[in-house]
């Protein structure tokens, strides 16, 4: 649904995005992670045909960026970082304006506006000036605005930033619902927990693409697969038994907890359990150790200085 090949954007002498080659599949939630100034918003703006690439190619919904810009804009929805609403107008007037720009007829406009105001819980306050709305309500209204014309591809730039946890959850749930409708979602975010929960794949980006994979594969690539074993009264006999297991790598002890890197956890975990039990250990808990996406992200980004 989205493809880029060596997509590059420079502003004067500053390179904001360098040689980005990326594929986002239809119906996928792709989280684009990176620190401030990494070029995430610039990438999103290029794909939304708001700014022109300096070099490279990109297609969105099968249409070429730089050639079919009007057609692309008609097929995408975008949630910008700032809501950018007309604060003197009410919710219906704000949405009606955008629905008209997308060329929706009167009946479709009315239906779509009512639908999204209802889904996003804004129906009761639809006649109030948007200036009276909370940040969360404005964000929801901006999301409704991005979806009125039922776009195939939706770009979200920091959709939950500055929202309270309750509003953030509503927005996250809604993004998940959009995926279930088969839309492709390109999510620029700092919120790693959000990316971890929502995204099928993440791209870690700092001017260029550092890594792209599923959150799980990224963890695996960086940290291998580790399994935690918690025993009661860890003894030297247990430690010796573990040391004797050739396949158990990088064994770390922390109190009664043992963390072991295993290449094939499904096959090797029972063998570790047997070894510990044979050594007389009282096994209390066995579970896979999962590095947070935050740890993965920080490890990836810290080695990549901004140019």
């Amino acid at each position, binding site marked *: 649904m989205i493809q880029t090949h060596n997509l590059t954007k420079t502003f004067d002498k500053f390179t904001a995005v360098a040689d980005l080659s990326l594929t986002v599949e239809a119906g996928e939630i792709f989280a684009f992670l990176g620190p401030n100034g990494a070029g995430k918003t610039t990438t999103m*703006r290029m794909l*939304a045909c708001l*700014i*022109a690439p300096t070099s490279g190619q990109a297609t969105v919904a099968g249409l070429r960026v730089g050639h079919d810009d009007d057609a692309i804009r008609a097929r995408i929805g975008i949630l*910008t970082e700032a809501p*950018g609403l007309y604060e003197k107008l009410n919710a219906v007037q704000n949405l009606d304006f*955008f629905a*008209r720009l*997308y*060329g929706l007829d009167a009946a479709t406009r009315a239906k779509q506006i009512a639908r999204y105001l209802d889904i996003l819980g804004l129906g009761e306050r639809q006649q109030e000036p948007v200036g009276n709305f909370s940040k969360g309500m404005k964000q929801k209204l901006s999301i409704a605005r991005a979806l009125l014309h039922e776009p195939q591809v939706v770009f979200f730039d920091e959709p939950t930033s500055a929202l309270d946890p309750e509003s953030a959850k509503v927005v996250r749930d809604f993004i998940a619902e959009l995926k279930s409708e088969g839309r492709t979602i390109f999510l620029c975010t700092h919120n790693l927990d959000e990316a971890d929960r929502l995204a099928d794949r993440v791209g870690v980006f700092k001017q260029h693409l550092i890594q792209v994979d599923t959150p799980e594969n990224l963890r695996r690539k960086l940290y291998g697969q580790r399994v935690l074993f918690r025993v009661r009264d860890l003894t030297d006999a247990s430690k010796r038994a573990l040391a004797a297991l050739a396949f158990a790598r990088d064994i770390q002890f922390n109190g009664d907890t043992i963390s072991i890197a295993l290449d094939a956890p499904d096959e090797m975990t029972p063998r570790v359990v047997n070894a510990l039990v044979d050594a007389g250990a009282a096994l209390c808990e066995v579970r896979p150790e999962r590095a947070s996406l935050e740890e993965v992200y920080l490890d990836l980004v810290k080695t990549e200085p901004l140019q």
Partner: protein
Amino acid sequence: MKPYRVFAVLRREMQEIVKSRGLLLAIFLPALFLTLLPLGGIAFLGRALDNVSSGDAQDFARLLTMMPELKTWSAGEVASYVILEQFLTMFLMMPLIISLSLASQSVISEKQTKSLEPLLATPIRTSELLLGKGLTAMLPALLATWVAFLIFLLAGRLLIDSPRVYSSLLQPKWLVAMLALAPLLSLLSVSITVVLSSRVNDARTVQQIGGFVVLPIVILGVAQTVGLLLLNVTTFVIGAIILAAADLLILRLGVRLFQREKILTRWK
């Protein structure tokens, strides 16, 4: 160009104007002031006419040289004529001032509220957006100018005693002024606003800088009063041609400066 998108912009801008006390004042205050002032002037002139001595007509000697038909008029009538001409010139400031206020508010407020990015992410073209905004600034300004001029003509019929003086209000040059110069002046305000908005961040600064465009009109009025220039149909038509050319140039510059990429990456 899709007219429905232009109309959507126009419609939304009008909704905002109706809800903004400041913008409504920006339309009605100049219209009210520039209508009441000439009407008051006419009422005052009616009483003052009798007190003007025939010798005072010599003060307009140069004007009389350019307009020999006025030589048969009484001094009071010539004085009234000159002052009415001055007032009528002021009507040409109305489309300038009102359009400048509306256009600067329209463009700059989009900049300040960051509403341009979602707007530019729709299929709207820059030309459609600018046309919609331009019409928003021009239509109320022209409507206010024409209504004010009509009120002035109707009230003048009642307040001006001299038929010769009143008939001067019905000269073809004022038709040219209202139907050609007023729209072109209004467009000038819009074009200047578009150019300035690429460099300036608040509406007041745009209005202050753009306000200088009223100077040429004031100069024209004064030039006629002191007899340096005669404002007739020919000068108004020439003025309209020059203005149209200036509008075209400034508008082209404005459109060149008003580019999506620059707006999004350089407008702070």
